[in-house]
């Protein structure tokens, strides 16, 4: 099962490698990992998308909590939550494709950030599925480059993660 873990960590050198090292040393999966400082610059928030049985995810959570620099861990998938990922995709946009590409970007509520006579760079946000759907809807040969941030997540409603 896919799980989204939200982690508050001390914003210290080495915290990221401790967490990444834990996943590799114990053989856990990381599908994606995002991290950046929070409104409190001494703390960073990380979103890790992982997969495993309930037992494995329970162990992951416990092992993360054991790390001295980890302040708090929440499994967002335990409750209702919002998940977003950002993708920048550079596509070939010339000739008859140019108009079609613009239309497709509009349908997916993407924004064209950069234009040349031959290509567009499109920004898209959404769940991973939506980004996948966009990529599947265009011809693979048209895609020049993609970059994705991995999912960031937050609980719905009053559910907050803070110390």
């Amino acid at each position, binding site marked *: 099962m896919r799980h989204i873990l939200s982690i508050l*960590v*001390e914003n210290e*050198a*080495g915290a990221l*490698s*401790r967490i990444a*090292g834990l996943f590799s*040393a114990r053989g856990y999966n990381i599908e994606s990992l995002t991290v950046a400082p929070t409104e409190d610059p001494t703390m960073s928030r990380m979103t890790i998308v992982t997969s495993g049985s309930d*037992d494995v995810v*329970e*162990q992951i959570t*416990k*092992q993360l*909590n*054991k790390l*001295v*620099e*980890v*302040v708090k861990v929440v499994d967002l998938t335990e409750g209702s939550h919002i998940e977003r990922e950002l993708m920048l995709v550079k596509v070939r946009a010339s000739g008859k494709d140019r108009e079609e590409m613009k239309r497709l970007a509009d349908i997916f509520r993407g924004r064209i950030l950069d234009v040349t006579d031959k290509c567009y760079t499109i920004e898209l946000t959404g769940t991973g599925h939506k980004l996948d759907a966009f990529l599947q809807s265009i011809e693979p040969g048209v895609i020049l480059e993609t970059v994705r941030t991995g999912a960031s997540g937050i609980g719905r409603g009053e559910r907050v993660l803070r*110390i």
Partner: protein
Amino acid sequence: MQLTGAEITIRCLQEEGVEYVFGYPGGAVLNIYDELFKQNKVKHVLVRHEQGAVHAADGYSRSSNKVGVALVTSGPGVTNAVTGIATAYMDSSPMVVLTGQVPTHAIGQDAFQECDAVGITRPCVKHNFLVKNVADLAMTIKKAFFLAVTGRPGPVLVDIPKDVTQATTEFAYPKTVSLRSYNPVTKGHTGQIKKAVQLLLDAKRPMVYAGGGVVLNDAAPQLTRLVRLLGFPCTNTLMGLGGFPATDPQFTGMLGMHGTYESNMAMQHCDVLLAVGARFDDRVIGNPAHFYRSDRKIVHVDIDPSSISKRVKVDVPIVGYVADVLDEMVKIIESSAQRPEPAALKAWWAEIKEWQRKDCLKYDAKSSLIKPQFVIQKLYELTHGDAFITSDVGQHQMWAAQYYKFDKPRRWINSGGLGTMGFGLPAAMGVQLVNPGATVACITGEASIQMCIQELSTCKQYHLPLKLINLNNRYMGMVRQWQELFYGNRYAESYVDALPDFVKLAEAYGHVGMKIEKPGDVEGALREALKLTDRLVFLDFITDQTENVFPMIPGGKGLTEMIFAEEL
């Protein structure tokens, strides 16, 4: 007052009440050594290899429950220390390891004797720090000592660049430490404890399984009270030996891969299992799928939540210091009118007695060759079970665990988790230093002892009168045993040819050496060695090469799938 980083380091150790630092000097730690030299509160023990320093600090800690401290230089000093650090980590020993680092401006430049100490040790420490600013040094060392002993103990490494030891700052040793990200649960949940006690009182076929957590948390008195109050059988893991008195009739012996038949059978067939400070590891329960039984309830008390329901699902998890939890259990039972049903308990004990009749530890005592088990038994008798015993890793370790009956905690010091050959001798040095006057014996084998043999020189320098019991079978015995049982007698590289003359070797280091070749000479030699209370004695026992450790659960098998000596 303005102090240098080196002065601060030593002042911090003094403030922590550190008696001994085990270490080895080098370029990056010269300033710290210079400050060590100028004072006499903290004594330094100069080892012959950094691995020895960390094992010695570990042995010191395990036998005393004080924090062990090691000090090594950058680069190879750190990499040599890694085995010791990983050993301490696996067995949850509270330690602080101070490492020198190249100056901050040289970090990342591939400087001479540079290595990423924090990176290399990250997976085998409880936590580690690189101190980049002298202003952070005192607080970091304070944090290191705090982290080492609280919650589940473990080694903490502090990496100190050379320029930080030279820089100056105002010094005041912090009185308290708080880490917002570190709040281990230390008090067991009362509701859960009550639930656990009810399960225990209602049990018909109870079993108590206690591990190293009992020893580490000094919970042996509480465990002993609880077990005696309930009248339940009790087993100890390899790390837990001494946590419950081995000569108590309620003790069923060690369990696990080389545990007793009765302990393993009782573990498998009990209806309520109380696990305390133990972690159901592979050498204890074997195959978890085989161990699983739907009609067995498990109560698990441990300081580390990640040890609970890791390999075995439990019914009543209790996270907290085991001493306090056991204390609370005793209080609840004492104030309750209910006791375990005597008839059920009697029937259960009758079943256990039947298993005990198998006498699974018997061996050929009439052999004309020295049986290793016999040496341990004699050592046990002659030291009245009151010696500190360290061991290396292999057959001798298992025989020591099986045949030396530990009645007190912190008397049995071995590398259980990592299984580090070479641990025994340096660990014994730490044990002897913190227990001067006590009999400290290292039970070892001719393969293990050679992994840290250079420490014989340290023993001479510090007048450590250890007794080394070398069970010399000319083989890496446990490797040979597996090759005999599972690899068709193909003894690949397990025979050790060209062994040194250990008597001469001991003498060359300035110690007493003895070679014992006949069973009839075992007792006399041990008596003579024990009488030499001011000398290290190396006893080289030439033992039966074919002897194996039994009972044995083959790898991947279940607790009831033991094989016995007589079956082969």
